[in-house]
């Protein structure tokens, strides 16, 4: 089943994490996972991320990985869609399969009581999907229906355009769900190929939280994934970010315009990363008191909400934001955003201290609930942080000086590169 995806920046959220006992588990079969044991509630949250995702679609077969992923729960062995759903519901387990631009995500929640049965059922979905013809046509229709809906959704139109412009010439520019033509042409053979390419042991990242020991998790992971091939499709190479101050408008009906704005971001191993990250929080943290929220919403009433921040793909870094405003106030809004970008280096000691206090204080608060923790752990691994990152992260923030933040703001928030993608009917805006 494919639900309506309004996903845009299906990128990885930046890290904020707590001082928690994360264990690295290596299964007897060699799979690695991060685990936090929590016995209070008798269930386990398991997160798998297969790197590659829609970037592995061969040219002309865009959407194959998305359709394949949507079919994982639609039939395996002697179970058809309804049989699979019945077996899953009998176990009161929940599985979700989420395709995106460069990841196939699998989220599972199952009761400790019947975890072996739940894992076996999930294994059958991941390793032995049968792609029954009836389900292929049904899920294909759902995807085509999503594509049609997205053509009329200004947020989705803006996201598509943003990706096309930003990543021109790279597979990141392609729509993950494919196009009407490519999706219509996909065959069961294409889906089998996509399955082989996208679900591999080499490219999987794993985190678990809940009522399970390290040893039991290792055994369970081997049962779950040993049937998958070791290697699959080749991951894409570096992507250049083509954002250099463009202002692009696409006409769209409605009272408001959707504005996406952005420029190239910063790598996590850049020495400026933490100073720049703090600067981004000051500018666009999306909460009250951050500069964009204060200037655009609180002082001028131009929007309901605005935020901006860094995000990273495997092969590119971005600094992006989003706002919606009435067509008549697009011009004013853009001017305010540009001005805020330019004046960002003007940061006071008080502002830095307040932001550090927020970032370090909110850090332990993310540590809440098995499902949240497992998602956070898998996210940290995807970004490439070491396992001791959760315990060190606040120290990195604390160590940043005012001079470093000011310098990073100046170096990495470049108003001349800041690009705007506008979908709507903005008034008084000239293409530059």
């Amino acid at each position, binding site marked *: *089943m494919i639900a309506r995806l*309004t996903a845009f920046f299906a990128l990885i959220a930046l890290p904020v994490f707590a001082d928690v006992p994360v264990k690295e588990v290596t299964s007897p079969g060699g799979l690695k996972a991060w685990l936090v044991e*929590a016995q209070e*509630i*008798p*269930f386990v949250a398991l997160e798998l991320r297969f790197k590659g995702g829609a970037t592995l679609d061969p040219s002309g077969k865009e959407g194959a990985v998305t359709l394949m992923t949507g079919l994982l729960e*639609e039939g395996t062995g002697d179970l058809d*869609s*309804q049989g699979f*759903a*019945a077996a899953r*519901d*009998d*176990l*009161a387990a*929940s599985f979700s399969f989420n395709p995106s631009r460069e990841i196939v995500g699998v989220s599972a*929640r199952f*009761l400790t009581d019947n975890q072996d049965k739940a894992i076996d059922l999930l294994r059958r979905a991941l390793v032995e999907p049968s792609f029954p013809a*009836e389900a292929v046509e*049904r899920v294909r*229709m*759902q995807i*085509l*229906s999503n594509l049609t*809906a*997205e*053509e*009329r959704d*200004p947020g989705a139109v803006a996201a598509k355009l943003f990706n096309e412009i930003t990543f021109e010439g790279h597979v990141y520019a392609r729509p993950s769900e494919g196009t009407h033509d490519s999706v219509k042409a996909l065959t069961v053979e294409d889906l089998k190929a996509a399955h082989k390419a996208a679900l591999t042991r080499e490219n999987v990242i794993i985190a678990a939280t809940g009522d399970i020991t390290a040893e039991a998790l290792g055994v369970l992971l081997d049962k779950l994934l040993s049937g998958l091939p070791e290697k699959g499709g080749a991951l894409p190479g570096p992507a250049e970010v083509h954002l250099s101050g463009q202002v692009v408008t696409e006409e769209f*009906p*409605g*009272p*408001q315009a959707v504005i996406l704005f952005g420029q190239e971001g910063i790598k996590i191993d850049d020495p400026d990363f933490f100073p720049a990250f703090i600067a981004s929080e000051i500018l666009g943290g999306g*909460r*009250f*008191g951050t500069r964009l929220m*204060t200037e655009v*919403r*609180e*002082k*001028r*009433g*131009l*929007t*309901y909400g605005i935020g901006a921040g860094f995000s990273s793909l495997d092969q590119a870094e971005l600094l992006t934001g989003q706002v*919606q405003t*009435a067509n008549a106030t697009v011009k004013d809004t853009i001017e305010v955003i540009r001005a805020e970008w330019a004046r960002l280096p003007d940061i006071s000691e008080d502002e830095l201290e*307040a932001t550090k*206090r*927020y*970032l370090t*204080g*909110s*850090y332990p*608060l993310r*540590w*809440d*609930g*098995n*499902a949240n923790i497992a998602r956070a752990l898998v996210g940290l691994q995807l970004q490439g942080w070491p396992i001791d990152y959760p315990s060190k992260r606040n120290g990195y923030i604390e160590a940043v000086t005012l001079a470093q933040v000011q310098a990073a703001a100046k170096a990495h928030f470049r108003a001349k590169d800041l690009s705007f993608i506008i979908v709507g009917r903005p008034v008084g805006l000239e293409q530059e």
Partner: protein
Amino acid sequence: MRLLLALALSFIAPLVAQAEEKVTELRLDNGLQVVVIEDHRAPVVVHMVWYRVGSADERSGESGLAHFLEHLMFKGTKTMAPGAFSQLVAAEGGSDNAFTSYDFTAYFQRVAADRLEMVMRMEADRMVNLTLAESDVVTERNVVLEERTTRTDASPEGLFSEQMSATLYLNHPYGRPIIGWRHELEALNREAALDFYKRHYAPDNAIVVIAGDVTPAEVERLAKEYYGPLKASEHITGRERPLEPPQIAERRVIMQDDRVGQPYVIRNYIAPSRQSGAQDEAAALVVLAQLLGGAGVNSVLGRELTVNSKTAVSASAFYDPTGYDGTTFGVYAMPAPGVSLEEAETAVDAALAKFLEDGIGEDEFRRIKAQLTASEIYARDSAMGVARRYGTALTTGLTVGDQQSWPEVLQAVTPEQVMAAAKKVLDRKQSVTGWLQKEAAQ
């Protein structure tokens, strides 16, 4: 909602349940109700203040006022500058927000457990000491107008939903949009907001719900210190709302909008909500929504429309069991390519008729019970979620005891009760059916 969240149509029937929660209830002399739900897994606490007032308590002509006031509650008190509330919470690493519905307005902070005192002091302060500058009111009204545009006017689905509700209710204020009709929203002002505040915000019209790493004794001490000195209002009168007359005619809404990407048909029926001490009918409807739409291809509508007849891309059912003056039960279908809305609607009705004829399969029923048991376990994973369920229950006419027994009531539902509830509720005379389409000719 004061800050933007996802604007999804909620087509999901939530399976509400919890188990083994340590819940303590106390009441201060000034009438303030306090509920403590202990969860010691992490050193975090969620502090929520729920007021028993929502958009359905607005006077005719002032739609949007309850939500507008929710925004203005961040604009300062006698001792707190505008915007300072959120900044002080953030300075401690916490987060805060607020939301408004038909029956309640709620404010919450999520902070480290040792910061409970601070947020309690600030919430107690703004319960009685709100001050509003005219300029802040005008700017914030523009923010709310932009919010209305984002949620509703810029979204054909949002506009359609508003038209559906306005048509379903003949007399009850549930027919008015929470965010307010634009022309009435534009006219709201400082005086109206302060008047509403004085009429409805007081300790005896509020419930404090605290979930997390706290003890009831500590909460009691702090609550008495900060909320205790506040005076009870002399004019909290309870809810005086126009009630719905018997509905005797089905209604239709046909909306066309050039921006529609995917047409769909939806039907909302008037339905009973959980009643204190008598929750079994609502529990039966929760099970019904799950049977009809909760499990994709394994639910009645999913199976009949998306697998068997292939008339729909997706089809489901939904039911929110809470509501001070009742609630709604809904079904929807998004037609497959080449299928008209009329045909999709016919398919929905045929599937419902077949269900009413055939009854419930034993396997299906057993499976739903298993899921209900599991959902009790999964639901305990989120302290915020648990706190929200208590707050919602207590502002919609239920008690702590009702909320605690809800999982058992759900478990006790029989197939006969489900069929009886289905026959009663799936009555088109008490419904509105809507088509959202791109243009007249489908």
